[in-house]
């Protein structure tokens, strides 16, 4: 069985590198100092838009809300010609079918959170059923949460096995593993959780659920990107990255792109390998694109509410 096999060659996660907090924070702040000229900015903004997982994860979500969001995904701002669509819609499993139908053959993916999102406090068989349900409903991607409690008690094998089991339940769907870095506490733990997730079969590692503060920050994303880089050098396997939560301004999103480019390189600069989990970022990007085109600072009043 795949799980048993990978457990045998298991990496010793207690040997994950320790992170120099001051160094990482200083390095991350450097990415915000790059000068980006207008043409690059426009291309960067379009790329950002194309990397967004447009998200609604609320208890109050309705079919109508999800359909509206899907329309927004396909038609971000019709007044602007030649802008891309977003990468995916991210919803709860119960909304996958609605989203799938609404998106039709637009090519936009449907991502579903699963495994008792956002806390992850449920037995494994329920998590597996949750995942299978989402995949059967048509989810192209599954966003799972790790068991942070188990991770903190040092039960790394439990966390590893759980991710591997969910990966198996995903079948062809790509698996994003949410570390919920805001609950991990230190960069060392973020790095260790990243290593566990990647070795256990994650296709993507993702910072946060968006329900806990702090969510994605640049230093924490840098730690994860470096983990991806080290994993790539070691195994030759590319892993995707998704910062989520707290990225609502275009400028910050461009800083993230600079960081990805300088840590992982061009190969990661597309929506197959890098995503933003966000809801309000899309409108800000659209406002900046219109500003670049017209020279006028824009108002949220003239963009669709999402």
């Amino acid at each position, binding site marked *: 069985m795949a799980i048993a096999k990978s457990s045998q060659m298991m990496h010793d996660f207690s040997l994950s590198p320790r992170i120099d907090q001051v160094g990482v924070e200083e390095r991350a702040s450097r990415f915000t100092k790059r000068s980006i000229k207008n043409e690059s900015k426009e291309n960067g903004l379009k790329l950002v838009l194309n990397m967004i997982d447009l998200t609604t994860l609320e208890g109050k979500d309705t079919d109508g809300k999800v359909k509206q969001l899907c329309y927004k995904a396909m038609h971000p701002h019709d007044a602007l010609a030649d802008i891309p669509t977003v990468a995916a819609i991210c919803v709860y499993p119960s909304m996958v079918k609605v989203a799938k139908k609404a998106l039709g053959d637009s090519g936009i993916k449907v991502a579903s959170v699963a495994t008792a999102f956002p806390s992850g406090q449920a037995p494994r068989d329920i998590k597996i059923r949750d995942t299978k349900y989402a995949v059967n409903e048509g989810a192209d991607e599954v966003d799972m949460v790790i068991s942070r409690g188990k991770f903190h008690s040092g039960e790394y094998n439990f966390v590893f096995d759980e991710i591997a089991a969910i990966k198996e339940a995903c079948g062809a769907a790509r698996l994003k593993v949410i570390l919920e870095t805001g609950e991990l506490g230190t960069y060392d733990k973020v790095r260790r959780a990243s290593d566990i997730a990647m070795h256990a079969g994650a296709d993507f590692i993702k910072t946060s659920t968006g329900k806990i503060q702090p969510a994605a920050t640049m230093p924490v994303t840098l730690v994860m990107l470096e983990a991806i880089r080290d994993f790539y050098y070691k195994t030759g396997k590319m892993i995707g990255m998704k910062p989520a939560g707290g990225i609502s301004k275009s400028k910050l999103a461009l800083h993230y792109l600079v960081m990805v480019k300088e840590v992982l390189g061009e190969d990661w600069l597309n929506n197959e390998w890098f995503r933003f989990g966000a809801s309000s970022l899309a409108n800000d990007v659209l406002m900046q694109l219109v500003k670049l085109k017209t*020279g*006028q*600072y*824009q*108002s*949220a*009043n*003239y963009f669709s509410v999402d």
Partner: protein
Amino acid sequence: MEKAIKKSSLNVSENGLEKTVSNKRLEVLKTYKIYIGGQFPRTESGRFYQPENAAGKKLANVCLSSRKDFRDAVVSARGAVSGWSGRAAFNRSQILYRMAEMLEGRKAQFIDELIQQDSTKAKAEKEVNLAIDRLIYYSGWCDKFQQIFSAVNPVASSHFNFSVPEATGVVSIIAPQNDSLLGLVSVIAPVIAGGNACIVLASETKPLCAVTFAEVLNSSDLPGGVVNILTGKPAELASWFVDHMDVNATIYCENNSEVQQMIREKSATNLKRITFYDKINWYSDEGQSPYFIMDTQEIKTTWHPVENIASAGAGY
């Protein structure tokens, strides 16, 4: 240089012991910064200019604000509108009164700055007194103008139909160049009395009072972002003040017909309200009126269905 400092500040006797210490000290000069979102940042651009008075004396190093400072100020103002316009009118009145109190307490400083900016003592005193009185005047109007300008409208259907003024939102203001304190107060007060938030460009040549007035605002319980004050050149910033799609109204207080033309054209993009106060004597009675409040208000009309109670008879 080093020698000179030593000589003036220390008097050393032959035996090397300090005899007396001079009373001379370096004056601590104020940094004139801008006011955005309740904070006093320097301009994002890092630029400054040195306005001079008529005698050619440099007044200070003053921030030369850029369009990005303006953009940041609009973001703060937009964030402040709902909270400020949602407050009870009476509370806005209290805060305007508080601003007058704070201004009264710092009268001497304003008079001093006005004199530096070519005013005479008597004129400066008059200007500060009037500015204080003007705040009191609009403080009084905060919870009264609605009643005067509202109406219950007769309509030919069973509707209760009424119209009330509401704040228009974010207002950009290019303040009067000459009456640097009274003019500034006279344009800001009616705008915020009506529940709007504003971004004001202070007088280019006489900016000192505007920055000090920001300190008054900051200690008056006025929520951050309701008034944002920038210093800089109208020639550079005017077009941005009108161009921004998130600004709902623009007030321009100078008589430059080219700028007025530009404002008329650019305001069309999002149908801004534009107002020119180019012929107003702020010292006279025409410098204050509830109609100034109405310049940045919108009239909202509500049709409320009612039963035809006239034919229903008494219900008891």
